[in-house]
């Protein structure tokens, strides 16, 4: 970095020399003959690259540890892939279903649901989805959990019939003998776990045409068994859903007539028998598991939350909800976030103002004392930083509670009656008192450092020109200390709106902030999407206020020293 300016000076002084020599003969050239503009640009670019390289570690550090996590968290406020990823076929079919009607979806949707649920259950994803949808509709968590084992049993109707028809259908070896390619079967023949990775399943050529549905199901089953379950695919018996796919193929479209490969005989026998098999009505089967599967609400909720991105969390964060007819306000008895946002803003402003009122005189005294005494007092200002936040807040509890030190003293002095003690805690008063105390240093320090730079001579000059003490302060001193107030206020305000430990301890129900709800959704209800949406709104509000501050006061007018 240090030699960069020198390089620039050298090239520019060379350029100056050229200017003197060249006297208007074409574009100005640098000493080495390249055009001056190009040469200068190159030097500058090099300089910029070096500067960038030097700050790169910090930049990368900030990006990786600060910007990326925040961006990731904010993205969760709209991210909603879980529904369409867990129920891909169902959500695709639901797109054509009329959510405003009175009919629940038809059998095709329930069959797709069976398919999707089966894989979700094998991968243990169904309860996760239930938890996600339970944020939107009460009862979804248990509906999905309950459906777990029973959905696995649904396909067994076909499995039992195939196995009853021919014992051939009972084993994984037999299935693989015609589903797997000869090459794969040969490589599996002598394979044991000790040989390392299991050879990846390869489908027999042409099978996809012969039995399309079965093939698709079998491929999923094979991949899951080999990768997730880490079982030997060759000896594992297939899932029940493979049999229902087979039934579908054998009774529907297939190319079995021309097929002459392994198990052709059994497949043809199966095709002949399958037409008279007992069939499963998936709609009824789901109704048997839980009658909620025939509730319109369940289906409108799944449909409303099918898209990969959702506005649902943001709507929730402003006390609204999605419904069949678009967004609408939540019922009165569930509206909470609007109140909390307003309260958080209002209380933060009050806390900032009380910090200015208390901090300004302190900073003034600090700035006007001799250095020795000022340093001693400054240590007292900083002392709270060396104490745990919890300890400081709990100390306020001891002081402020009904039977606490302050009330006891007031009763002893006879100022308040013993059965009429002041309510100083578990309300907004408690929050304001405790948070003003905790945030006060953030106001005093910028004020102090700005006030230190104000020359005492200005005040003396004002007075010598006839100003009263007040005029001298108000017209001369105060305007110069405004940048300190600005910096302190921004610090205190931004810290205040994000606080949650102190309000949780001393705030009771009236003194809680929006951050308390964010903390609840992150750590307790696990509704990270809603927590992220609330956080995003809070962030936007801060940015907006910052912008307003810049327009009204001017951000250049903020100084930390």
């Amino acid at each position: 970095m240090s030699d960069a300016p020198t390089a620039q000076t050298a090239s520019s002084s060379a350029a100056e020399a050229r200017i003197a020599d060249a006297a208007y003969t074409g574009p100005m050239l640098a000493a080495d003959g390249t055009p001056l503009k190009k040469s200068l640009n190159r030097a500058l670019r090099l300089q910029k690259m070096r500067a960038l390289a030097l700050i790169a570690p910090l930049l990368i550090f900030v990006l990786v540890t600060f910007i990326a996590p925040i961006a990731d968290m904010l993205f969760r406020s709209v991210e909603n892939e879980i529904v369409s990823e867990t129920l891909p076929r169902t959500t695709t079919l639901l797109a054509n279903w009329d959510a405003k009607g009175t009919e629940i979806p038809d059998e095709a949707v329930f069959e797709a649901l069976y398919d999707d649920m089966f894989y979700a259950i094998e991968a243990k994803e169904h309860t996760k989805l239930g938890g996600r949808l339970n944020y939107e509709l009460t009862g979804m968590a248990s509906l999905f959990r309950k459906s777990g084992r029973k959905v696995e049993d649904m396909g067994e109707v076909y499995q039992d019939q195939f196995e009853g028809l021919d014992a051939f259908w009972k084993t994984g070896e037999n299935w693989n003998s015609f589903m797997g390619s000869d090459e794969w079967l040969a490589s599996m023949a002598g394979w044991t776990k000790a040989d390392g990775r299991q050879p990846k399943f390869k489908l027999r050529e042409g099978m996809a045409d012969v039995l399309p549905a079965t093939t698709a199901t079998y491929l999923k089953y094979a991949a899951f068994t080999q990768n997730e379950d880490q079982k030997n695919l060759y000896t594992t018996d297939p899932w029940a859903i493979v049999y229902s796919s087979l039934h579908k193929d054998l009774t529907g479209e297939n190319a079995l007539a021309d097929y002459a490969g392994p198990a052709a005989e059994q497949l043809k026998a199966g095709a002949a028998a399958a037409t008279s098999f007992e069939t499963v009505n998936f709609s009824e089967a789901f109704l048997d598991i839980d009658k909620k599967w025939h509730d319109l609400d369940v289906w409108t909720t799944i449909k409303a939350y099918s898209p990969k991105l959702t506005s649902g969390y943001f709507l929730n964060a402003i006390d609204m909800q999605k419904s069949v007819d678009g967004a609408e306000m939540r019922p009165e008895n569930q509206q909470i976030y609007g109140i909390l946002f307003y309260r958080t803003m209002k209380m933060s402003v009050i806390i900032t103002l009380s910090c200015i009122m208390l901090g300004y005189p302190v900073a003034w005294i600090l700035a006007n004392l001799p250095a020795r005494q000022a340093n001693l007092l400054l240590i007292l200002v900083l002392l709270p930083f060396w104490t745990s936040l919890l300890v400081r807040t709990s100390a306020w509890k001891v002081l402020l509670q009904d039977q606490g030190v302050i009330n006891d003293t007031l009763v002893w002095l006879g100022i308040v009656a013993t059965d009429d003690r002041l309510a100083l805690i578990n309300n907004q008063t408690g929050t304001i008192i405790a948070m003003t105390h905790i945030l006060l240093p953030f106001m005093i320090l910028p004020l102090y450092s700005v006030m230190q730079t104000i020359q005492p001579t200005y005040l003396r000059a004002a007075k010598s020109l006839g100003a009263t003490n007040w005029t001298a302060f108000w017209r001369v001193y105060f305007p110069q200390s405004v940048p300190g107030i600005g910096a302190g206020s921004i610090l205190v305000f931004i810290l205040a709106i994000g606080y949650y430990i102190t309000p949780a301890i001393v705030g009771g129900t009236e003194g809680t902030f929006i951050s308390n709800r964010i903390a609840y959704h992150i750590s307790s209800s696990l509704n990270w999407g809603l927590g992220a949406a609330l956080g995003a709104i809070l962030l936007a509000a801060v940015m907006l206020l910052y912008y307003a501050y810049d327009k009204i006061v001017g951000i250049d007018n903020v100084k930390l020293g």
Partner: protein
Amino acid sequence: MNLTKTLMASTALTVAAGMAHSDGHMASEMTIVSWGGAYSASQQNAYHTPYSEMTGVKIINDESSAEAVSKLRAMNEAGNVTWDVVDVVASDALRLCDEGLAMEIDPDTQLADAPDGTKASEDFGDLLVGDCFIPQIVYSTTVGYRTDLVGDTPPTDICAIFDTDAYPGKRSLEKRPIGNMEWALLCDGVEKDAIYDALATEEGQQKALDKLATIKDDVVWWSAGADTPQLLADGEVVMGSTYNGRLFSLIVEQNQPVAMLWDAQMFDLDGWIIPTGLSPERQARALDYVMFATDTQRLADQSKYIAYGPARKSSAPLVGKHAELGIEMAEHMPTDPENAKNTFLYNYEFWADYRDDIDAKFQAWLVK
């Protein structure tokens, strides 16, 4: 170039050191997460110390159980689970199981039999409330009151909470709907068996909130288990709900003028889960630890140090005296027949469904 080299070298060193550290972790250490305080101390005495002596495994205590669910989810997403065994309440265990963050446990093959050969599944019985949850203790949320502030007629049933005429003064209740809603309906005249059916309806929920509204101005809402004991000790409240073990230490260890009101106590379970995503060696060791720590004798041992009931039926007869105070612990157990005349068992299934919905209404009611 030099700088680059230095950077690369130091990065490589850091990575190597990190890997070496995690290797060391594999070999001889395991991280067990619990609640801290007296509870962790009781586990240290009853489980960790004997296990370390027996196997030479060093146990690191982490006191993060209160945020275990969110932290485990974050660790899982980051693909780096650093916890081996985690102590959580049953409702959190169900949630972790649903989220695929806790592994399923087969009690009969992965937990110890009772000394008389009874299978673990039978020994724990109904307390095995989830596929991933290994119960450890039964605790209850119950009410304690100041004996010197309630006059000559100490409260005998839960509805004293709502009776501000007979027992004026503040009361502390937990800042969540679970427990409070049930008590409110019970004291509003709803039959105990019908409470959850009522709570599943809008009217029932409103009824419970209306009942709570009658004392709203007299309630201090707590969110940490230590709040009520402090409020009782300072005389801030005349009565308040908290965990029975907290009240035990307030009454027996600190000799405060407080008594227990066992009526309508809300049983809940606390126990172990093993996170998913552990390497096979770590998982095997976690299972080994859990099998040791939840056998009949070990569960009974824990009750020497804290007033929570062991989750195994076979442990009950082995409950003895407090290790330091020398008093019989059986009568301080929430499960003691004398204390358990009228009880609720936390309805896991109901609250797993209704928690989000009722909590939203409860919190909205609170802030207004």
